[in-house]
Structures are given as structure tokens and as C-alpha cells.
């Protein structure tokens, strides 16, 4: 395949991916199968399709910041940045927040490109070493989620019971969220509840319910008034913030790309804690870098010649079509990441600029209702009525930490818990324990 044709498809993919990703909470993983299905009828060769999909992921990884920052509709990787992003938006700094995340993504892209000659040597070895241990690594993350919850009372209740209740309110809500999300995720994965034609979209309603709709409902109730946004000419971040945030994000993103079920956001939180990250700017930058390395990196692994490394939802479905086996394709992908990320960043600046100038004109509660309707239509069209029901239940679970002030991280048990059981070989036993049909 011609190098220029490969790059052309990456660029085309970035543009299409960016346009799709502006829509709140629309995940490129749920749109890509449509491209895969129509590609043969358009005469697009499988190898070119893969570069197009790489472009889609690059566009999504960069542009999806908009959905989180301006529309408060996060996904499973950005829900953790929702609070600082919303704070910045309320303070008229939405544009700055978007650019910070974009800067993080650019740092992630730079490092991914710079490391690409080494990654092809290192990643297969790392995967060989890590793969047999994934179950206990995931189990550790589950413990981390549980133990990271903390009481948020001030110990000022009038009676012992009042203090006890206040102390356990957030803890209990967190643990309840964890348990419900775990069982909910396990049933979705191992029960036969979703239509078989949409198995690929199996977790979509759950994620949309848990992370997006719950946030949007809170928007409707709190009716935040978004002020006119300022267009900053510089970022409230030092070079050290860029380096520290970028490094934490990259390490978190790489970790999440290697370990299934962990998302870039989660990887970034852990890497941030490991590197003693405190600053808000560092945090937002790290999420940008982490998301890019997580999404693009996981898909990029598929290009490693001779290894057929399939990581992440999109790689899984793309591998049904074509798995690159040539070094030339690998390095075209590297070039595609370099060029595509810059292009996506440019698009991010333009769209953020437009939104920053206009978002204050929009009633946020109405906007949230419109997004909920859009997401419901997407869920219904991909997974039917059962998908809608699953989304509603996910929303209810996702609301618990928001209302009771516990950590939303507990919702991640929806995917980590069932995968941990599966990798430990305990999924069958748990299914029997629940009395699920096998």
C-alpha cells in the first residue's frame, strides 16, 4: 500500500472521527462498525480501512474533550475530569480547559511517535509478562477503588448515631455503587440480555447510563448558568505542569492500554497519585495525554508487525477485517499519529473557540435534555428496548455517587469486576452463584 494513501486515509479518518466526536457522548467505538460494514461497498481496501479507523480514534481521543467540558457528557475515561472541567467552565475557562486537554493529547502523541521504534520491541514482551497476571492486577484495582473511598463528614453530628450516619453515608453509597455496578456489569456480560445482533454494543448502554446520563440529569436539577467564556491566549500551566501531567498521563494511558478493562482516566488517576500530582492543570493535561495514549495506543498495537496484538474494542472489531503484518504499515501508522494528532488539535481549537463564544447563549438544562434524548436514540437504535432499560438502570446506579457524594470511580466496577473474574477463571462459578443460566 502506498504511504501517501495510508496517510490520506488517516487524515480523512481524523476529520470524520472529529465530526462524530463533537456529538455528546457518542463514542467512536460505536460508530466505527458502521464504517467497517460499508467500506467494502465503497471499494475501500481493508488495509486502508484500518488507517481510516486509526484516524477516527485520533480524532475521537482529541475532540471528545469537548463533550466532557462543554456538554458535561463524559464517558468512562473522562468522568473523573468532569468536576474540574465544569468548575473551569463555570469560571469562564472552558476554552482553556479544552486546550489543556488537547495539549495533553499532543504530548501523548509526541511520546507515542518518539517511542514507536522501541514500542514494537517492548510491548509484545510486556504483554507476554503481564498477561498471565491480569486477574490479580485487576483485583488490586478493585481494592484500590474500594479503599479510596473516604468519609466526607466533619464529625459534628449532635448524637453518636448522627455522626455514625454522616460518616457512613458516602462510604455506604460508594460500596453500594460498587456492588450494584459489579453485579450489573457481570449480568450484562454473561447473561443473555442484549440482542445478539448488538453484542458489540453490549456495554454501551451501561456506560452511557452510568457516566453520561447521570451527569446530565444532575445538570437538569442544578441548572448551572454557564457564563460567557474567555478566550485565553495562554494556558494557566507551567512547563513543569506540562511535563508532570504529560508523563503521568502517558504512563497511565500506556498502563490502561495494556491492561484490559482499565480506562485511560483510571490509569491516569493512579499514575497521578504515584507521581504526587496535585495541580488542577496537571490533572487535566494528564487526562488528555492518558486518553490519547489509551485509545490511540491500544489501536496502534494492532499495527505491530508479526504480533497481532488486539487491545481495546475498536481493535477487536477491526481485527475481523485485517491485521497489518508489515513494518511499512507500522511506520505509516506512526506518521499518521503525528500528522493526525496535529490536525485533530487544530480542529479542537476551532470548535472550542466556536463553543466558547456561544455556549452561554444556550440553556444548559435544555441542552442536557436534548443530549439525553440524542443518547437515548443512539442506545435504542443500537441495542433496542433492552438497551434502553439497561441504560436507565445504569443511570440510577450512576446517580448514587453523584447524589451521596461518593467517588464515581466505583462505577468502573461495571467492567473491571466481570473481566477480573473471567481472567481468574471464576466467572463460571460466579454465574452459578448468581443462578444465571449457563
Amino acid at each position, binding site marked *: 500500500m502506498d504511504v501517501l494513501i495510508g496517510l490520506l486515509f488517516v487524515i480523512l479518518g481524523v476529520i470524520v472521527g472529529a465530526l462524530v466526536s463533537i456529538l455528546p457522548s457518542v463514542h467512536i467505538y460505536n460508530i466505527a462498525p458502521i464504517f467497517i460494514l460499508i467500506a467494502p461497498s465503497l471499494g475501500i481496501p481493508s488495509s486502508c480501512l484500518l488507517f481510516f479507523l486509526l484516524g477516527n480514534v485520533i480524532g475521537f481521543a482529541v475532540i471528545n474533550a469537548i463533550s466532557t467540558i462543554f456538554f458535561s457528557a463524559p464517558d468512562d475515561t473522562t468522568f473523573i475530569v468532569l468536576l474540574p472541567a465544569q468548575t473551569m467552565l463555570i469560571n469562564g475557562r472552558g476554552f482553556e480547559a479544552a486546550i489543556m486537554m488537547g495539549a495533553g493529547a499532543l504530548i501523548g502523541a509526541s511520546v507515542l511517535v518518539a517511542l514507536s521504534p522501541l514500542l514494537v520491541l517492548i510491548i509484545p514482551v510486556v504483554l507476554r509478562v503481564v498477561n498471565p497476571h491480569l486477574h490479580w492486577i485487576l483485583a488490586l484495582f478493585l481494592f484500590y477503588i474500594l479503599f479510596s473511598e473516604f468519609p466526607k463528614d466533619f464529625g459534628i453530628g449532635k448524637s453518636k448515631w448522627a455522626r455514625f450516619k454522616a460518616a457512613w453515608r458516602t462510604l455506604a453509597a460508594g460500596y453500594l455503587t460498587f456492588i450494584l455496578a459489579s453485579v450489573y456489569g457481570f449480568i450484562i456480560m454473561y447473561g*443473555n440480555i442484549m440482542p445478539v*445482533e448488538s453484542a458489540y454494543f453490549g456495554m454501551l448502554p451501561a456506560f452511557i447510563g452510568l457516566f453520561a446520563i447521570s451527569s446530565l440529569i444532575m445538570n437538569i436539577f442544578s441548572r448551572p448558568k454557564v457564563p460567557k467564556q474567555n478566550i485565553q491566549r495562554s494556558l494557566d500551566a507551567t512547563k513543569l505542569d506540562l511535563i508532570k501531567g504529560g508523563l503521568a498521563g502517558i504512563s497511565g494511558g500506556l498502563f490502561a492500554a495494556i491492561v484490559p478493562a482499565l480506562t485511560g482516566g483510571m490509569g491516569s488517576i493512579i499514575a497521578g497519585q504515584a507521581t504526587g500530582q496535585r495541580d488542577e492543570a496537571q490533572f487535566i493535561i494528564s487526562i488528555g495525554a492518558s486518553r490519547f495514549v489509551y485509545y490511540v495506543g491500544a489501536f496502534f498495537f494492532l499495527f505491530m508487525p508479526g504480533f497481532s496484538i488486539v487491545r481495546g474494542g475498536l481493535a477487536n472489531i477491526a481485527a475481523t477485517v485485517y491485521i497489518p503484518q508489515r513494518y511499512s504499515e507500522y511506520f505509516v501508522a506512526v506518521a499518521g499519529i503525528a500528522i493526525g494528532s496535529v490536525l485533530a488539535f487544530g480542529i479542537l481549537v476551532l470548535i472550542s473557540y466556536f463553543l466558547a463564544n456561544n455556549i452561554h447563549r444556550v440553556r444548559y438544562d435544555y441542552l442536557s435534555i436534548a443530549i439525553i434524548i440524542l443518547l437515548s436514540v443512539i442506545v435504542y437504535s443500537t441495542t433496542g428496548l433492552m438497551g434502553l432499560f439497561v441504560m436507565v438502570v445504569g443511570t440510577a446506579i450512576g446517580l448514587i455517587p453523584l447524589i451521596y457524594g461518593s467517588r464515581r470511580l466505583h462505577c468502573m466496577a461495571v467492567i473491571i469486576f466481570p473481566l477480573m473474574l473471567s481472567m481468574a477463571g471464576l466467572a463460571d462459578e460466579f454465574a452459578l452463584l448468581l443462578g444465571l443460566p*449457563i
Partner: protein
Amino acid sequence: MSASDNSGHFEESQEGRYCPSCGRYVGHHSLCPYCGARVKVRVSLKVLAIISLILAVSGVIAIYFAAHSKAPTVLVEQITPEMNYARVRVVGYVVSAPYYDDISGRLSFRIVDLNWTYNEYFNTSNIIVNVYPPTSLELIRLGRIPVLGDKVEVVGTLKLRGYIAMAINYEEDLNILREAPVSVSIDEIANNWGSMIGKSVTVDGWVVEYSNYSGMLLLKIKDYYSTTQYKLSVYIPEIVYKWLGNMTDFFLGDKIEITGNIWEYRGEPELVPWNASSIVLIEKLEIMPLAEILANTSFYGEANVIVMVNVTVVGYHPTYHNIVYVTDSSTASQVTIFIDWEVWDSLGTEAKQKLNTIGFNFVTIGMCTFYKSSFEIAVYDPSWLILG
């Protein structure tokens, strides 16, 4: 402490004076002039909290009950990339001999659906079924492994790459749908095998060819008394004789009964035993007096009966030393033993000398045949000769 920090208290004690949303003083306005929030008619977050709690718990319970449905049955042609990781049921036939790797513990075989439908997207009609430990070990222990031609019902998780694969997670997810076997003759199979594909049958016959390849045994069995003299191929994959029951000790010339599936291989029927125990030895080949053979040479020669004889060398061909004349105590007549050229060449000098020594006694298995109207017993494999 600001009003917004403790809005609950303000709502109770100073209703209408401070905005419960932004905490600013609003007087008697029903809408906050600063943030636009309703001041009097508001939905308490408590209500939302209770609703979300009830909905979350009852929703998970409802999903739990919804999950009690069976996996849907699909045809190969219906499988699309979006069905990756779907748990589905496929009813069809096993079209490849199951392979069991005892190092990794992986068991795999291929199936087609009942209608042999073809998937245009993946360009195949086959699904590769993989079973991993501990399920594979359990299936081996239970002896519940299908063989070529078995009708099966498989429930598993689709794994789609450039091909269609399926992983079985539980031993209950593999059901072999075998009918009670029907006793048929080799002649019936020879005449009607097209309509018998996938049927369970019990057949008996004499082993007239026996080849031990790496990973399989290939036999030909025939009924000496049949009209067609058809030699039916029997394919015994490694998994059958190594992992599924105890194989009876049989060899060339023995009469055996096999229960298995009729399947097709390169336009010819073949019989695949269900397991090692479904091969039953009926009659072991024993040493036969030459007199008995000579009394009915037309039958033995035309049916190419495999015999075992204990004979003494009485002469050999002056030019072709692989043609040996023998007799035994049951008769004064002599019989020609033809040792195939390849077999003769493979013998050592000592063995050749023995076979060309008058009075040398040996046991051999051979196939009765006619060569230019003369009856002879032909030896086609070095292992047939027992020279003592």
C-alpha cells in the same frame, strides 16, 4: 457559613429569602433574579436520591431475571462483526476431527450449521470451536467429545477475527445429538451412502487395510461375503484412540464391529467411530490350515481374504527369490507366497536367506489372491512376516 453551604437550613428556616441554588438574597421572588432558579417549587434532591436508589437496586434485580433467557440460535450466514463476543447457540455438524493439545489443554474442532449456510462477510461456512481448560479437561474426562459427522448443539461466545471462532465456557454448552445407531451392512453403505451422511450406524467387517499415520489410524473394512466387495474406509483420529475410552487390540484380518458416523471424504463414504470403546473385536485372526484355504480357493482368492498361516518353505522361484513355495501339516499341496518387492527389499539378508531355506518354518499374514489364475498368498507389509 454562606447560604449555599447549607442551603437545606435556609430552605427550612428562611424560605423565600435566599436562593437555594446560588445562595443569594432574593426577597419574595419566586424565581431567583440572579441564577434563574426556582425558589419555592423545587424538587428535593432527597427525592432523586430515593428514586435512584430504588431504581438501581430493582433495576439490577430485573436485569438479573431478564438474564435467564437462553442464548439465541444463529446460522453461520447470520453472523456479523457486531456480534463479536455474543453468546449464541449453533446447531450443526462437526466437519473436522477434534484436536486436543494435551500441553495447552485446548480442544478444537470445526462445525457448520444444519443448512451449511455460507457467511459472505467472513467467506466461510465453518465455525472454529475452541474449548479451554478446565472445561476441555472435564469434557475429556466425561468422554463427551464429538467426532467428525456428529450433530452438535454448541453454546458459546463468538470471537470474530478474519474467521468465525467460538469459545465454549461450560461443559453443558456442548451437546452431542446422536441418534441410536442402526445396524447396516457395508453393501448398504456402498449403495446408499449419500443419504446416510451424518447417520449413526453399526457396521461389522474384516480389517483388510491398516495404516498407522501420525495422528490417525486409517482402516479399510470389508465383508468377505458381500456382493459388492466394497472396502469401507474407517478414520480413527488420535483423539478417539488416545483420549476417548480404551482401544481394543485389533489388527489386519480381525473382524470388528464399529459404531460411529457415516461421513464423506473426497467423494467416498467413511466411517468415524464415536470413541475407542465403540470398536469391538468380534473375531481375532488365527492361524488357518492351508488345507482349509485350498479347499475353497475361489472364495478366498476372489474375496481377497486376509489369512494367517504357519508354513514351511518347500522351495522358491529360481529367478524371483521373493516368490516362496510353502506347505503345512494339513496338506501335501504347496502354496505360493508372494512377498511384495518393496517388502522383500526392506528385509535383511538373514531374513531373505531364511525365506529361501528349504524346511524353514514361519508364520505370516497374507492376502489371498489370484495371479494369472494361480492362487497365491501375498504379503504386502514387513510386519506381516513373523520369522521367529
